[in-house]
């Protein structure tokens, strides 16, 4: 999907892909900490169906990178047991849609065990998964499912949009003593960006202002960030100066950066790939209504997916998920309010 491409730059040499960043981010932590181990389907010699674990098996061998059967419950359940007993497992669930197959672990087991044991047990694990649409995979391989996790207290949720953030947030996720669901966006795997410096760590819960602007705040996540940036460039040509905030994490949620941006712009549009109903944007809007109402000079808008399963054809998919056009239209209306 053309909308998901990050703007191209002249020099390609010092840039890495988002997909390479995933493997690089994991490798850095595996080199640093022998307790980090990977498990998942096809992640070993095959390097993962998205090639996001390419090179790990060669460097670390079968004792650190474990191929599993197609057993999502066993993968995440075993990761939990290992995390409770001294390891830092990184489990891959191939497509985020398949989180439903091990949903018990995400909803009932992993996030609750610390709490319901009165703090006795720590679960330092990462569940990585390829999220979102844009590649024409149809309704069962294209969903943006971060909201499933967002409804469950006890999970941290990362969703980076650039290769450098993938590496920095992977470091933070793997080092976290809390469970992290790490959403890698399928539509971004081929995108490129500057490499991450050595020891790059992006603490979870820190949004980034990726474009400064004075007229309106656009808050986006993962693949919606490059889309919002493209929309912002178009809007700039019309004289509307949009600030773009890359939320980067849903839990912890960096409300402060959003409110600080609204102090400047007083207008808010949220861009979410997931369906409008139950989307994380609704929570953010409610926090802004609670705590930042006085900052607003206009209603807030959410540009989100339609409430339908993701259709297959490009033309149909574009109809139901946010596009640059939809964002531009929403912002234009709001700027004129």
């Amino acid at each position, binding site marked *: 999907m053309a909308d998901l491409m990050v703007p191209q730059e002249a020099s390609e040499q010092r840039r890495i892909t988002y997909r390479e960043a995933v493997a690089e981010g994991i490798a850095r932590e595996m080199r640093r900490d022998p307790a980090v181990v990977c498990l998942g389907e096809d992640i070993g010699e095959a390097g993962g169906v998205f090639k996001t674990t390419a090179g790990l098996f060669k460097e670390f061998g079968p004792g650190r990178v474990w191929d599993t059967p197609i057993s999502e419950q*066993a993968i995440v359940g*075993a990761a939990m047991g290992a995390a409770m007993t001294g390891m830092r497992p990184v489990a891959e669930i191939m497509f985020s849609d398949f989180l439903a197959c091990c949903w018990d672990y995400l909803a009932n*087991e992993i996030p609750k065990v610390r709490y319901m044991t009165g703090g006795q047990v720590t679960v330092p694990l990462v569940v990585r998964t390829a999220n979102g649409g844009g590649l024409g995979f149809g309704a069962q391989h294209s969903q943006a499912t971060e909201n499933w996790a967002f409804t469950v207290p006890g999970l941290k949720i990362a969703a980076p949009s650039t290769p450098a953030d993938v590496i920095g947030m992977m470091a933070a996720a793997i080092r976290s003593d809390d469970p992290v669901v790490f959403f890698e966006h399928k539509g971004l795997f081929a995108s490129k960006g500057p490499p991450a410096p050595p020891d790059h760590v992006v603490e979870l*819960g820190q949004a980034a202002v990726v474009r400064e602007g004075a007229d309106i705040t656009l808050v986006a996540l993962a693949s919606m960030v490059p889309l919002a940036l493209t929309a912002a460039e178009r809007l700039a040509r019309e004289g509307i100066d949009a600030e773009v905030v890359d939320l980067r994490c849903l839990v912890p949620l960096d409300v402060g950066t959003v409110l600080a941006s609204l102090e400047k712009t007083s207008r808010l549009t949220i861009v979410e790939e997931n369906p409008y109903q139950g989307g994380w944007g609704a929570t953010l809007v409610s926090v802004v209504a609670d705590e930042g109402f006085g900052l607003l000079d206009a209603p807030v808008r959410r540009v989100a997916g339609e409430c339908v399963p993701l259709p297959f054809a490009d033309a149909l998919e574009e109809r139901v998920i946010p596009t640059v056009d939809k964002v531009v239209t929403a912002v234009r209306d709001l700027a004129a309010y």
Partner: protein
Amino acid sequence: MATTVTGEELLTLYGQMAVIRRTEKAAHDLFLSGLVKGTTHLAAGHEAIAVGASAALRDDDYVFATYRGHHHALARGATPEECLAELMSRATGLCKAKGGSMHLTKASAGMLGSYAIVGAHLPMAVGAAWSARLRGTDQLAVAFFGDGATNIGAFHEALNLAAVWRLPVLFVCENNLYMEYTAIADVTAVPRPAADRAPAYGIPGEVVDGNDVVLVQEAVQRLARRARAGDGPAVLEAETYRHYGHSRADPATYRPAEEVERWLKHDPLDLARGRLHVLGVPAEAVTAADERATEVVRAAVEAAKAAPAPDPAEALTEVWADGGAAWRT
């Protein structure tokens, strides 16, 4: 049958079973008198499985249990006082009153939790065994579960993964013939719900009299030895019966009277007493063990009753490893 257990050792196991039996009775009574909220799933009748297995395990082994897990927590070293305090929602409870009856956990004793979603903990035990392998220890992981769990997908995923990775994990099924109110035989394709499935994963599936603490101990010892030696997982199906209903005040009227009678005559404590007699342990020593158990549980009930309620502020702690619960920065 000849066994290796001495009279002294068996008396210790008997004493533990006696404490569990009385703790369950106390939990039942406290529930009926309104001092235990929610629900309880009592394990009276299952004592020999928890005590026999624990006697065969090392202190650094891992145990995972179900919502019917009081006996495992107690056998693994939780005190009746901290368990009953947990059930009675006291600040001194095993899980600071955040867990309740279905989640008794004593991590410091290798009792890594009681899980109320049927079958969910089997893959966790596989993960703990995997972790032992990764860390180069010869620790063992044991998952205790009911017969009903054998028809859950996680059971099959766990057995397969444990088998292909040859992990030191034991799957111990407490087959008490019933799920909640339905007989396992009515909804299961094979007669031995756990043991019959094990060969499909290339691992041994044994059946043991789960009411005989000595036989349970010996079976777990044997299977643990081979698992530690690198020969992989095993399934042990322990036949037993629950004395109370499934939960709370379920009178269990769905069970035929002669079946109940037959099983109550096959009581784990009676069986152990018979063995103690054969081993020449004097009756007074057994009576003394019973009296000690009665006193321990009586004191535990009193202490738990006297303990304070938790500070409501505790509700907002311990979601995260830093002790807090903040979802925003």
